[in-house]
């Protein structure tokens, strides 16, 4: 573990990504404590203000403090994205491993079906599911998880197929272990590393997908502090004050870049050929 961390910090992507992601999680956990003002407090006199000592990032169309709203909004945006990605990963990893273990016709049918579902763009699939369940943050989480599962299943399967050919799996089969034992105890632990990399990178997609759903009015609902929703609301007022639009956009980009960099860094660190 320490060894992995050392390798991770040696790559520029890994070091920057790790710092960004740690910062993001600090904001997620302590956001409400760090927020200088009440994110819901409106003030008619202080609308569309630029950055000042009182309002570090300025105020929005209702005179609410943008910094406070961003700090508190991190919870809805980032936490949701992480949980949606994890749920999608577990579902996909399970399907992929089972498919690789079963092999033969079952494997072929499962994978062809997954390929077929992947012909529906992720965003469209998520839109359909949210529409089915109704617009809310929790339903958006389910939608993103379901939309991610097929892709994760495909990646897990290709890794699991390589693992299945290993001698220790053949040994377990020869010992007469049950299928569930082999899948859960022998195969899953060994497909974890590539999946961790993929999951980390996908968190950044999930953040973007979430924000997009909220932007289209199908995720978080006003007056939530979700970042995509903030961008969506800011569009009407962007001619008066560009800050309302730019700060939440920047927040989304920073989180996405952080997870992207960390994922690439992890990939290098976990790869015995390129890692130090």
């Amino acid at each position, binding site marked *: 573990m320490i060894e992995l961390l050392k390798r991770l910090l040696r790559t520029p992507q890994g070091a920057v990504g790790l710092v960004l992601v740690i910062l993001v999680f600090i904001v997620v956990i302590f956001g409400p404590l760090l927020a200088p003002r009440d994110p819901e407090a409106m003030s008619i006199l202080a609308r569309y203000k630029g950055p000042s000592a009182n309002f570090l990032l300025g105020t929005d169309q209702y005179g609410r403090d943008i910094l406070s709203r961003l700090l508190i909004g991190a919870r809805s945006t980032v936490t949701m994205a992480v949980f949606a990605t994890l749920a999608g990963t577990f579902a996909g990893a399970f399907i992929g491993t089972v498919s690789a273990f079963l092999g033969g016709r079952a494997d072929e049918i499962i994978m062809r079906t997954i390929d*077929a*579902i992947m012909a529906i763009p992720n965003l*469209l699939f998520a*839109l*359909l599911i949210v529409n*089915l369940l109704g617009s809310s943050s929790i339903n958006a989480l389910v939608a993103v998880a379901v939309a991610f599962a097929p892709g994760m299943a495909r990646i897990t399967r290709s890794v699991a197929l390589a693992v299945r050919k290993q001698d220790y799996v053949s040994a377990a089969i020869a010992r007469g272990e049950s299928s569930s034992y082999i899948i859960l105890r022998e195969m899953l632990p060994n497909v974890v590393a590539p999946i961790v990399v993929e999951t980390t990178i996908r968190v950044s997609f999930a953040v973007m997908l979430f924000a997009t759903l909220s932007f289209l009015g199908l995720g978080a609902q006003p007056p939530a502090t979700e970042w995509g929703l903030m961008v969506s609301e800011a569009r009407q007022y962007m001619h008066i004050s560009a800050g309302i639009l730019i700060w939440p956009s920047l927040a989304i*980009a920073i989180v996405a870049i952080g997870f992207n960099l960390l994922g690439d860094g992890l990939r290098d660190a976990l790869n015995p050929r390129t890692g130090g």
Partner: protein
Amino acid sequence: MIVYTLFIVSLVVFAITQVLPADAAVMMLGENATDQALEALRQQMGLNDPVWLQYLHWLGGVLHGDFGQSLRTGQPVGPAMLQALGRSLLIAVLSIALMLVLAIPLGVLAACRRGKLADMIVSLISYAGVSLPEFVTATLAVLFVADWAKLLPPTGYVPLTENFPDGLAHLVLPVCVVSIILIAHVSRMVRSELVDVLHTDYIRAARLKGLSTSRVLFGHALRNALLPTITVVALDVGYLLGGIIVVEEIFALPGIGRQLIIAIQTRDLPAIQAGVLLMAATYSIVNFVADILYAWLDKRIQYD
């Protein structure tokens, strides 16, 4: 393979739209319709039939090019969606063209200057590119380019056949926005493929033979590095279609993405079904063509 894909997609779409809590008869006649009128319409539309029969009925229509009538407008869905798809494909093709023109040189530059300043700048650009969702770049583009600099029209659509220069001006921002993520992704792919290829034995052999650097790069390395890119670009079409949904919504372009958003918001079931099927069909056909192209360019691969 395409047939199987579309069959599964049709099942998924039909299942999702079946579960949607929307009564087509109520939507067409309004909330105040009498029970008899609703019942008569349900009978006529086959809404009282078992689900599998409704599915077969719908599928039969689709196979004959009949996607049913829009619950919102009462017009046939198929022609409207196909026309919208045409407009979206124009954006898609222009975006892919722009992406190829920019992403390949950027990737080659980064691979040849590996670890140098140019490589780091390209890599920074691509990280920023993959980390900005389309709705953010689109909104910022409208603010900076259209509203502040007044270089291009902010939103709207003008058919190219009506007024070519004006129509083109309306397409510039949407195409740029959609292609940003593609450029970022593909330039990184080209870079990593080319870096791998440049370390192979046949490239070293070509160098040792005394060929010039440009001859090695363009005559030997690039061809092999670009082959896997075909597959990546084809898979990215799924992402591209998702991006087009957002961009059409923001720039008010009457393409299939905007049609789908309207259909989803108004629960216009036949329109949702037609739109999703057409998008999935586009994706499948592109990937099928890419597979054939790949096999044709790379003689080592043979498809049955």
